[in-house]
Each structure stands twice: as structure tokens, then as C-alpha cells.
């Protein structure tokens, strides 16, 4: 009896999450997989047939897809790294109290509280090559002599979008890391100090391992989130010029609603999920995430 009790215990905790996932995510997910293998156009709903791998074939023969996939990697890696590094620095700078820290924190976390589309529009305007303030300020500071076409150049457009996303994302990393840093028992660092560990050693050997779970999971989820973030791209550049700022998910969004071919879009979605799952499994293995804090 006791054993059974022990066995069931985790499921009591898990059931609320299970129901949310199963009921509301199960159907959309399986629906997506089904559509990936169907000829499914929203305009021809009475004519849905099994398509085999045709949708996938079309993806791999799409002449744009290679460049867009590379773009996506660049987009995700740069955005994530910038958010992580800046967020970490911010959290460390905020860890020790100083006068006015409360106000400072309140202000610095604000970007996160803006809705994505407002951020997208504002940055699009600020980086406008002709009447945007960024160029104007740079010119007035004599840092540049000619206006930069931030959003009109195929090389810069994607980085302009990244800037907006990083701006919005730093506070998030900051908050998560700061919250984790606060949960590190001070006794641990103090003990290390008494053992003669230097600041850097304390940081790498005590602090980092302590916040590793939070760090790992935040990175994981952020990766997925950045990967799936299509709306800022859609608002700022619509993937242009000439697809140079398209990522796989913005490309999919535009294809889905312009061709109304959700079979094709779903196939792309299935590929995303396979790719991201592989990434996650590897990431979890490498960071040994699963082996911490278990079992009471």
C-alpha cells in the first residue's frame, strides 16, 4: 500500500498539467501531424486527400529554404546569446543592493512589458533610414556621415530585427537569472569563501551550478520561443528585402496565410518540431539537466 502511495504521488502533482497539455495541445498537435501528410487547402476543405510525403518534398525543393534556414540559425543564435549575456550581466549587477535599486529594476524590466507589435512598430520607425531618430542621432554625434539603410539593406535588416527582440528579451533573462541568484543560499558562497575560493572560483563552482537548472531551462525555452517568433519580423520587414530577414517561422506564417495551404505549413511545422526536439534532447544530455534535485 505504501509503495503504491509513493508511486502515485507524482501523478497527483502532475495531473493539472497533464490535462492542459492533453486536451488543448493534443488535438492541435496531432492535427498538425495529420495535415502535414495531407493535401489541405483551406479553400478546398471538401477535397482533402492523403498526400504522402509530397508536402515535405516541396519544402526541400523550395529554392529559398536553404538561405532561410541559415538565416534562422543566425537569428536564433545571435538573439539568444545577446539576451543571455546582457541578461546575465544585468542580473549580476543587480544582485547586490544599492540605493534606488528598486526603482532601477522597475525601469529596466519595462521593455518586457510592451506588447510585441508596439515594439516592432516603434523600432521600425526608429531605424527608418530617412526620418528615424537613430540615424539622426548618429549623424549629429558625427559617428556616421551617411544615413544607414537599416531595414532596406539585406545585410542589416535581420540585425535590426534582432536588436528589437534583444531589447525586449533582456529583462526576461535578467528576471529569471536574478530570481535564481537570489535562491542560492548565501551559506554556500560563504562556506566557499572560508575555504579560500576566489571570487571567480566561487562564481563558476558555486553560483553557476546552483542556478544551472534555471539557466538551462530558460535557454531551452527561449530558443524555442525565439525560433517561433514571427510577428516582430512580420511587422518590421515582412521578411524583406528579398527574404533576407525571413526566418523559417515567419516564412511559414506568410506562406500559410497567403497560399492557405496548411498542409505545406504543417509539414514545415513538423520539421521544426523534429529539429527542435533533437536540439533539446542533445542540450539536456550535454548539460546533464535531468540529474538535479530529484527524490525526497
Amino acid at each position: 500500500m505504501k509503495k503504491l502511495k509513493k508511486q502515485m504521488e507524482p501523478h497527483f502533482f502532475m495531473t493539472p498539467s497533464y490535462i492542459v497539455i492533453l486536451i488543448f495541445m493534443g488535438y492541435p498537435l496531432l492535427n498538425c501531424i495529420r495535415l502535414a501528410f495531407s493535401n489541405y487547402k483551406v479553400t478546398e476543405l471538401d477535397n482533402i486527400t492523403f498526400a504522402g510525403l509530397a508536402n515535405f518534398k516541396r519544402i526541400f525543393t523550395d529554392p529559398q529554404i536553404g538561405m532561410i534556414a541559415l538565416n534562422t540559425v543566425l537569428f536564433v543564435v545571435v538573439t539568444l546569446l545577446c539576451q543571455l549575456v546582457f541578461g546575465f550581466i544585468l542580473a549580476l549587477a543587480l544582485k547586490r543592493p544599492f540605493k534606488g535599486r528598486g526603482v532601477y529594476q522597475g525601469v529596466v524590466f519595462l521593455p518586457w512589458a510592451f506588447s510585441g507589435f508596439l515594439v516592432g512598430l516603434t523600432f521600425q520607425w526608429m531605424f527608418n533610414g530617412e526620418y528615424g531618430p537613430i540615424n539622426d542621432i548618429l549623424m549629429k554625434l558625427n559617428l556616421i556621415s551617411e544615413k544607414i539603410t537599416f531595414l532596406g539593406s539585406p545585410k542589416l535588416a535581420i540585425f535590426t530585427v534582432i536588436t528589437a527582440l534583444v531589447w525586449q528579451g533582456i529583462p526576461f533573462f535578467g528576471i529569471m537569472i536574478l530570481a535564481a541568484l537570489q535562491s542560492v543560499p548565501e551559506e554556500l558562497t560563504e562556506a566557499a569563501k572560508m575555504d579560500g575560493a576566489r571570487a571567480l572560483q566561487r562564481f563558476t563552482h558555486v553560483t553557476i551550478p546552483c542556478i544551472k537548472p534555471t539557466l538551462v531551462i530558460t535557454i531551452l525555452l527561449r530558443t524555442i520561443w525565439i525560433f517561433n517568433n514571427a510577428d516582430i519580423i512580420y511587422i518590421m520587414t515582412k521578411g524583406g528585402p528579398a527574404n533576407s530577414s525571413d526566418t523559417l517561422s515567419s516564412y511559414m506564417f506568410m506562406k500559410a496565410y497567403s497560399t492557405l495551404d496548411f498542409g505545406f505549413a504543417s509539414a514545415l511545422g513538423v520539421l521544426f518540431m523534429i529539429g527542435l526536439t533533437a536540439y533539446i534532447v542533445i542540450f539536456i544530455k550535454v548539460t546533464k539537466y535531468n540529474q538535479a534535485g530529484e527524490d525526497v
Partner: protein
Amino acid sequence: MKKKKTLLLIGRILILAFFLLLVILPIYWMFITSLKAPADIATLDIQYWPKNLTWDNYKNVLAGSNFLLYLKNSTIVATISSAIVLLVAITGGYGLSRYRYKGKGLTMVAFLITQMIPMTLLLIPMFLIFSSLKLQDSLVSLVILYVVLNVPFCVITMQGFFMNIPVVLEEAARIDGCTKFQTICKIVLPVMLPGIIAVFIFAFIGAWNDLLGGVMFINSEAKKTIPVGLSYYVGQFSVNWGEMTAGGILALLPSAALFAFAQKYIVEGMTSGAVKG
């Protein structure tokens, strides 16, 4: 030694100043835009302080639109959905972090996979679910949507926070004669407070700022949320910058208040106290 300390201090001040500037610039831009008259907004001779300062944009947003109604709807939806998310996340996070059981790895992966479904592909199935539940055009549909969208992330994050809490803490409480329930409520949750608040804020902000769900699932004026209301300032032909930024700044106030309230808890971090006691 002292020199090193001063250097560190200066470095820290520089970093803090840098972040402040970075954050402030775009917000400042939005703010001054909201104070400009229409003719002063898009000019080649950029005004870094409005020549004709006016509060008309704010007046128009508050009096000329249903902004207060949107505010109410957003508050209802965001509060309820994040409360539910928090509940699910606490139980789920605890289960995931404190037990080893069959299928746990699978659960984790399932959670993560749900995060991968692109919103584009989620919309139509969700639409079908809501219309079969007769929940079209209702705030309940938004509550459900935001719970579903935020739960996986929050459960996993919460699990991370639980993992940060040494198991020893719970064992000690057990030895002191606490039941499991008591242990969780009296020991673990207080220690977790920063994490709990962070997750709550995450869910809240996620719901507060979502545009796509609001646009797709809400039809009637009386049920629109703030981002949907703001999106109306982007017309087919022009963007009403003045009122949109005014609305954006107003919409920011509740979140800012939330941050102001929450940062105290995040910062104070009750960990040390709990371990000591």
C-alpha cells in the same frame, strides 16, 4: 585591494548606466511621441522634445475610445489566467522536480514540444475547439488560450526553481515532524517566492500582451483586450502614432506597477532567512 574595489564599483555603475540608457531610449521615444500633435510626429527635423506639447493624445485615448473597457478585460483575463497557470505550475513543477517516475522524461519532452507548435498552426484547431465548446467571442476562450500557452513554460520554469531548492530543506522539515503538505506550504513555497512571482509575472505579461489570440477569438467591442485596442491605431493607410503610443504608455502602467511590487520580493529573496530558521 581598495583600488580593485573602486574599479569594480565604477564598472558596475557603467554597466547599470548602459542598461538604463538602452532601455530608456525607445521608451522615451514612445513617450515624447505621445505628447506630440499629429503634424509634429513624422517630421524630417526630428523633435526630441515636442515643440507643441499636448496631452490630447491621452485625452483622446481615455475619453474617445473604450480604453478603460479594454483595460478591464485585459486585467480580468490576465489575472485569472495567470492565477490558474501558477497553480498548475506549482503542482506540476513540484512533481517534476522531486520525483523520479516512469515517463517523466517523456512528460518533459511533451511539455517542450507543445511549446514548439507554431501559433500559425494552433489557431485553426483552437478555433474549432472553442466553437465546439460554444466559447467563441468570450473572454473564457482567451483565459483558456493563455493558460494553455503559458502552462508548459511555467511548469518547466517552476521545476527549475524547485531544483534550486536543496532537498535537505524538506528533509529537515520532515524530521521536525511536518507532513508533506505542511512542508510544501510552510517551507518550500516561501523559499520559492521569488520564483513563484517571476512565473506569475511571466504568465501575466504573456496574457497582457498577446495580440494574435485577442484578434482571432474576440469579435465584439465589449470584449476586446488592450493589445487589440491598440492594434486599431494601425490603419490601412496610416498609423496614428500619437494615440497609439499614448495607449501603449497607459497600458504599461499596470505592468510597471506589478514590477514595482514584485521586484521587492524577487530581490529580497527569502532563501537565506528560511535556511537559517
